[in-house]
């Protein structure tokens, strides 16, 4: 770790902590009624999001999933616009039309969360195709879960990317479950990274709870992609600490499993490492406080933002060339 500057390490922590606390806040705000829709929280999976996105430049792009808050925040998404979107306000990222499953910010290279498992993978490949055709040194990274690797969309997209050597990184967050079904009952293969062999690009397994390890493999994959050498499949082994969605009774967990993983909590572990690296408790508290303040502001912003106007529902279906209106 010591090869990284304290600033960098603090930034890693800041983003991970932001994600964790954003998730807890939004769960709380959902309970309190500010947020009307479902939330699939990524509590426990902060390290993959942060490690991966830190390896990207702003002009690089990501596609995300139903469990996307972490990815978006890690890529630079503004908590207040996200919270406002979750609260279905017109100031939200999607003007209240999208909600948790569809947050996007094209300026930040966030091409969208996705409600369809595996649904965003082909678009990442398409973005990479655009970069490659225009000879831009940009990279597309697609986040998806272990369950998504059993979708036809993953297979077809990976094949095309491998074939055309496109600058794309396939980032699989293997959290051992797809909803209530364990990974072992969804695919006969344990290490999903091995699937990359079908498409002739490397597959790498990484401790998904270690943001630095994730950062390092992703950086390598991104550099490879930028050099025009094609895709990489990264499998981050991790675990989700909460239900598939908030309210999930979680009948499916194995006894003792959660306890084991809680010991590897990416936030707590990294916080300890930060202290070991010489960061002071006060400095860390300071970061945490800043995050909390940002989240207070986000909630306040969301709460005070107006709900959309009814006729808003009718625009944005088509482009401005048709007034964006439905027909």
């Amino acid at each position, binding site marked *: 770790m010591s090869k990284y500057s304290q600033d960098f390490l603090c930034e890693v922590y800041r983003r991970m902590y932001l994600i964790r606390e954003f998730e807890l806040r939004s769960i709380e705000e959902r309970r309190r009624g500010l947020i*009307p*829709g*479902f939330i699939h929280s990524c509590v426990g999976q902060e390290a993959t999001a942060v490690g991966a996105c830190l390896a990207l430049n702003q002009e690089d792009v990501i596609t995300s999933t139903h469990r996307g808050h972490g990815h978006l925040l890690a890529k630079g998404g503004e908590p207040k616009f996200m919270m406002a*979107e979750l609260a*279905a*306000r017109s100031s939200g990222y*999607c003007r*209240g*039309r*999208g*909600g*948790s*499953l*569809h947050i996007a910010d094209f300026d930040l290279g966030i091409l969208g969360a*996705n*409600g*369809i*498992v*595996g*649904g965003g993978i082909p678009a990442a490949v398409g973005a990479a195709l655009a970069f490659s055709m225009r000879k831009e040194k940009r990279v597309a990274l697609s986040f998806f879960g272990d*369950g*998504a690797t*059993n*979708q*036809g*969309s993953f297979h077809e997209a990976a094949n095309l990317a491998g074939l055309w050597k496109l600058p794309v990184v396939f980032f699989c967050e293997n959290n051992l479950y*797809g*909803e*209530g*079904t364990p990974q072992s*009952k*969804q*695919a006969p293969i344990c290490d999903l990274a091995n699937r990359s062999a079908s498409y002739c690009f490397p597959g790498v397994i990484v401790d998904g709870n270690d943001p630095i390890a994730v950062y390092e493999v992703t950086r390598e994959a991104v550099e490879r992609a930028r050099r025009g050498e094609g895709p990489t499949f990264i499998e981050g082994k991790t675990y989700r600490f909460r239900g598939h969605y908030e309210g999930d009774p979680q*009948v*499916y967990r194995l006894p003792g499993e959660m306890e084991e993983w809680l010991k590897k909590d990416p936030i707590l572990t990294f916080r300890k490492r930060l202290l070991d690296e010489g960061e002071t408790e006060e400095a860390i508290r300071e970061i945490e406080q800043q995050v909390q303040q940002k989240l207070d502001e986000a909630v306040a912003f969301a709460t005070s933002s107006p*709900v*959309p106007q*009814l006729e*808003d*529902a*009718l625009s944005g*279906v088509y482009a401005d060339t048709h007034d964006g209106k*439905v*027909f």
Partner: protein
Amino acid sequence: MREISYSEAIREAMCEEMRRDPTVFLMGEDVGVFGGVWGVSHDMLAEFGEERVRDTPISEIAIIGAGLGAAMMGMRPIAEIMFGDFLMCAGDQIVNQVAKARFMSGGKAQVPLTIRVTTGAPGSAAAQHSQSPESWFMNIPGLKIVVPATPADAKGLLKTAIRGEDPVIFLEHKMLYGEVGPVPEDENFVVPFGQANIIREGKDVTIVGVSIMVKKALQAADVLAKEGIEAEVIDVRTLVPLDRETLIRSVAKTNHVIIAHEAHKRAGPGAEIAAMLAEDAVEYLDGPIVRVAAKNVPLPYSPVLENYVLPNVNDIVEAAKSFWPGKA
């Protein structure tokens, strides 16, 4: 008669059929340990075991395709697709394989496959989890499309689907799962396809309801009754086959017709119903065929917007009143 929920009625139909016929089985994402994300198959794993209540990978193509293959080999699979929105992940299997197997093989392939799938907007689930795919496959010959609106119909129609020899898309409305109503306990209670149900008689206007809109049509009829308009409410029950006779007969009596469905208006199930009536019953019409349906925009997340986009009781009431502008 004892009353149970739409959800329990569906579960009961599955359990009864699985008890009487060993070839019936259920497969889908999280139907087993989880009991189905909508809870419909709760505790079925315990009774029937892993062989007959099969949790699958998140692979809609494989679920439908495996259902097809098993059905052609003499099983009677019930394949669950969690959201109607995801049917399109298996579009080719449904349209080009399942629907056409019998015809293309010269009538030899039997495909007793029931595709259970949820439909409708559960509230702020946004554009990819709220769609009503009732009409998406109506253009495809070879499929039957079933839209139960009551617990009894849910049970009786599902039994017909499971016992039949043809592929059926069985659309369960998420917001009806909790609906409670009388359901016959008779194990052989079935509701045949192609028979619409006149659930309220009236002489002034026919309201044809699809799925949850039947319920709203009944509520609208109550409101209209107070204004002196007697609405006849018909639950279409199956879109393919469509009970043309019952609809035409009703329109011949009332001379006015509203079709209400939650799917988007453009090319929704109401388009075919309206077109059929415009072709076969136009002489009875004293006014336009009005469709009350979702607006032609993706379902928004915001409750305010969603509510604005979805059709409601008042839309039906207003549509009915528009036939008699003088009365308003």
